[in-house]
């Protein structure tokens, strides 16, 4: 059992599972954001639910935070370990010949996404926590849509968001499909699963971008 925590394969599987969890979260997050495009009321309603439901707040939110932290900490740990596995580097290394740029630069795309997460937390999560738990303001079920729209007024911020989502696509392009392989799923359905993952990798970030850009242009 101890091997399950320390072994390379266990870590790889843990990366895959935390990644899959985040993919699922992404889908959920996108669905809510997408609603903001056509129904501010429904958006407010769902946001209010997410922001006040104790299960979401005190169970799911910590799990999510743990998953995010775990995924990136483990990503760093593995990156460092992997770097150590080749002490002397090649004078000439033609990585493009046998592997995609995305697969070789997960740490880079991951870092950009992480930086974005920082910005995102600064924009939404921190004010939200302060609003609710530090200043203990009374809950205003209709405030969410306004806050959202307000954030996308700045072209710089919107631009940063768009750029980050491009990197998210790059990250997901390899990461999502590869998580199937990591958990040992490689069979006749794999081609279809991979295609789905690649479509997802483009569609979801693109959706986020559309939401951001539409709000920016509308206001």
């Amino acid at each position: 059992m101890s091997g399950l925590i320390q072994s390379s394969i266990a870590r790889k599987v843990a990366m895959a599972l935390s990644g899959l969890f985040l993919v699922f979260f992404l889908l959920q997050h996108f669905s809510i954001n997408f609603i903001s495009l056509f129904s501010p009321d429904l958006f407010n309603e769902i946001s209010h639910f997410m922001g006040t439901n104790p299960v979401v707040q005190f169970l799911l939110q910590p799990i999510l935070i743990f998953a995010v932290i775990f995924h990136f900490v483990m990503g760093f740990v593995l990156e460092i370990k992997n770097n150590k596995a080749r002490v002397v580097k090649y004078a000439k290394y033609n990585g493009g010949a046998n592997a995609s740029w995305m697969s070789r630069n997960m740490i880079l795309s991951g870092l950009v996404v992480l930086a974005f997460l920082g910005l995102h937390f600064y924009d939404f999560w921190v004010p939200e926590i302060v609003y609710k738990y530090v200043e203990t303001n009374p809950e205003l079920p209709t405030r969410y849509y306004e806050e959202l729209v307000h954030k996308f007024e700045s072209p710089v911020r919107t631009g940063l968001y768009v750029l980050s989502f491009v990197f998210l696509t790059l990250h997901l392009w390899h990461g999502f499909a590869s998580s199937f392989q990591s958990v040992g799923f490689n069979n006749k359905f794999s081609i279809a699963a991979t295609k789905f993952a690649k479509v997802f990798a483009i569609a979801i970030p693109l959706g986020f971008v559309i939401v951001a850009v539409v709000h920016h242009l509308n206001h």
Partner: protein
Amino acid sequence: MKLTLKIWRQSDAKAKGNIVDYNVTGIEGDMSFLEMLDVLNEQLIAKGDDPVVFDHDCREGICGACSLQINGEPHGPDRLVTTCQLHMRKFKDGDTIYIEPFRAKAFPVVKDLMIDRSAFDRIQHAGGYISVNTSGNTIDANAIPVNKDDADDAFAAATCIGCGACVAACKNASAMLFTSAKVSQYALLPQGQVEATDRVLAMVNQMDDEGFGNCTNTGACEIECPKGISLENIARMNREYLSASLVTK
């Protein structure tokens, strides 16, 4: 053909190596890459220099002794061949070719382009076998039918020549393709079932101990493998390992 070669020279395991430039002439397209190096070595010997050391033996692509990172790719730019079967017609007159040893912490350089791949052997020692004595009274070979697809898949995994190109190609110097090929061969056959749990745990633990990197599914190993060993084997090993970890005491 006239070529410029940039070759890693390192006098022994402890020495600090560096890339040295050489020019070779009179190279023909029909020569194999190693025959091109033979030409260089004849030149060096004639001059009284130390010839370039590299591993090679069968020169027909099956023993797995030859290696070489050629222009940044294990076994060079061609696919499904080892360096000994790479022909110079894949290069052009005037080309510059980088020739380096396969790089991994677990594959230390012995001299020049020769590396120590005994880490692979130790992974095999750890569990790459079925415990059966040579009695001459084992059960008849046809007593256990094996599904043809499984037999074919086991064979495909077993064709690994242990050259180390998978490790060399991998940006993480991971040995997952090699290890999984061996685990798969036995996992797919009924004969291998009895020890399957212990085998995968022992082999993966040894692999980790040797200092190979982690698999990040870039797929480079599969592309560069001269025998076309499939990534499916890695997925299979992941499954085997997970279930083994959960059931062992």
